[in-house]
């Protein structure tokens, strides 16, 4: 896995979700993004969908797809690596 991609993705998530008290190193790459872990909500999920489209040219089409992608920073990074057009 590209560690630079993971680091940059963490920075982008922090900025997009206004996680003011977080630094990239505070986010566990494998921790759950929703529920426990970062404790994100449904609006955050929409922001992450926008982030993937804006920064990586990835359009997510189904809810099932998004559930799998947004499990953790690692699953997001893996999906980006395979599907990015930017």
């Amino acid at each position, binding site marked *: 896995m590209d560690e630079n991609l993971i680091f940059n993705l963490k920075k982008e998530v922090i900025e997009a*979700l*206004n*996680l*003011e*008290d977080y630094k990239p190193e505070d986010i566990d790459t494998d921790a759950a993004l929703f529920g426990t872990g970062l*404790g994100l909500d449904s*609006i955050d999920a*929409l*922001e992450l969908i*926008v982030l993937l489209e804006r920064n990586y040219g990835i359009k997510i089409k189904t809810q099932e797809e998004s559930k799998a992608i947004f499990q953790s920073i690692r699953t997001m990074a893996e999906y980006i690596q395979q599907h990015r057009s930017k």
Partner: protein
Amino acid sequence: MILLSYCRINDKCVVKDGKIIISDLPITHSLSHIYRYLQLDYPKFFKMDNLSKLGFLGAELLLNAHFQDIENRQQKRNISIVCCNRAASLDNDRRYQETIKTSEFFPSPAVFVYTLPNIVTGEIAIRHKIMGETSFFVLPKFSAATIWELSQSAFDDSEIDYVLSGWINFEFGKSDLFLTLLQRSQNPNTNVNETILDQLYTKYQ
């Protein structure tokens, strides 16, 4: 109705019940500065728009001190929220407009959800588990008389014992908050009137 407590937040100071809590705020201070000074712990604060942040801070100052069960977060059906301002959610509306002004735009859902002024009353209600009615009015300018009248009418609901009411305005980067916590009273001698509210607002300009 009795005035239990009041607070004032503007670009110069934070005042509660006549006591200055923060003064000499730096010119470029942000509402996050006040949040950190008050040592609050509510990460959702950082996701709010400026209007909601401002109202949130005022409500924290008043409600945490008066409702000691804050840690247990018991649902409160006997509190109503009535707030007013001049600029509605214009500060955030402008921010949202910035995200959609180009042809290839990516509107931000997190910014969009705050493009209504009454979201601030909802944020306060969620934080403090307030189940009473909440309302938000947009006025041409600060009016103690209108705030007094709206607060008084909130007590028409017999289940309401307390009303959190006042002025929450955020416009062109400037904060202007005056919030009161009022309690139902049967004794007319203890009633607060609009003149007192107006004096308290204008005292800290």
